[in-house]
């Protein structure tokens, strides 16, 4: 306990601890806000197709991140079409702070 107390007496350690707490709060907020980004109407299947909207046109980085969850079949403006996503992965995608909305992809959409 003495070492912990000595560490917390340092301003630098307190700043780092404060940053860690802020980061944890931010992660908690992302987890709480994620379900609200997912629109209603996803079919009751194990794998679904989704239209993901970002606040900016997607770049290579974003496409590579989405490819961890499914197949990217196209982009248009700020939206990305992602197919074959495990339904349980929708929340993980919604937790990304740069994802604005996830809606079901209409059947027959290109």
């Amino acid at each position: 306990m003495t070492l912990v107390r000595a560490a917390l007496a340092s301003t630098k350690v307190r700043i780092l601890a404060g940053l860690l707490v802020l980061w944890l709060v931010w992660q908690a907020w992302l987890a709480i806000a994620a379900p609200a980004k997912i629109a209603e109407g996803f079919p009751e299947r194990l794998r679904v197709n989704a239209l993901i909207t970002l606040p900016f046109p997607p770049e290579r980085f974003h496409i590579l991140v989405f490819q961890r969850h499914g197949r990217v079949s196209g982009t248009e403006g700020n939206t990305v079409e992602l197919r074959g996503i495990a339904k349980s992965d929708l929340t993980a995608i919604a937790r990304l702070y740069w994802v604005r909305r996830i809606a079901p992809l209409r059947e027959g959409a290109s």
Partner: protein
Amino acid sequence: MTPLLKAYGAYVRTTARFPVLQSIVPFVPLIVLWAVVADAGLFPRAFFPGPIDVIRAFGDLMYKGILPDYLADSVGRLVVGAAAGMAIGIPLGLLVGLNARAHALLSPILLFFQAIGDIAWLPILIIWFGFGFTTMTFVIVYTVLFPVVLNTVLGVRSVKQDLTRAAQCLGASPPRILWEVVLPGALPNIVTGLRNGLGYGWRALIAAEMIVGTSGIGFLMFDARRAGSVVEIVLGMIVLGILWYIVDAWVLAPIERATGQRWGLVTP
């Protein structure tokens, strides 16, 4: 001289009250000089961006989620590599330091492999493991390993024989001597080795990310050259510097100091 003395007095008082400022103030003239040179237009803006351009790029990469993701990847790799390097390096250092036969057998091998730089392993690692996490982790472990092993050996050998003999006289078993005498005595050197190893490992990681990475700060910088984005390269360099400064000066150095104060040997 009076205004200068007054300004210096104010600086001393302020930094005494807020010691964190001591870390920031030395950079102020450097940033001012950088801004002046950039604004003077001596070089094209695309080749020599100013501080404001870098701040704007920082905001953009944060907004798009690229910088936090790459930063997390780099730090994660360093943590995994350093943990593995310590897990191998400390026991190996104890063995070499405590056992004369192991020392005679392993010292030439350690020296031989120490001479082969981490980057020299990359060609063969790419053939064996491809472009990915295993290759980068191997490079970091390799880089962290030698400073940890050699400093642990030094630490073990610097523990006074009198202390070991005193513990033996009091009936301590070999494992207890190792745990309560040798290891605490060697700890200041082990922490110094870890600090050096992490510094080398951090640099090796960035080099490895540039060559074999698909993410990370090194990859961000090397990928930026494709688009000719000097501002992202400069941003990557600044992020590397700031992150390492915080890790080394704010975390590792105090741990090293505290370890030295708690377990270091005071000699008159």
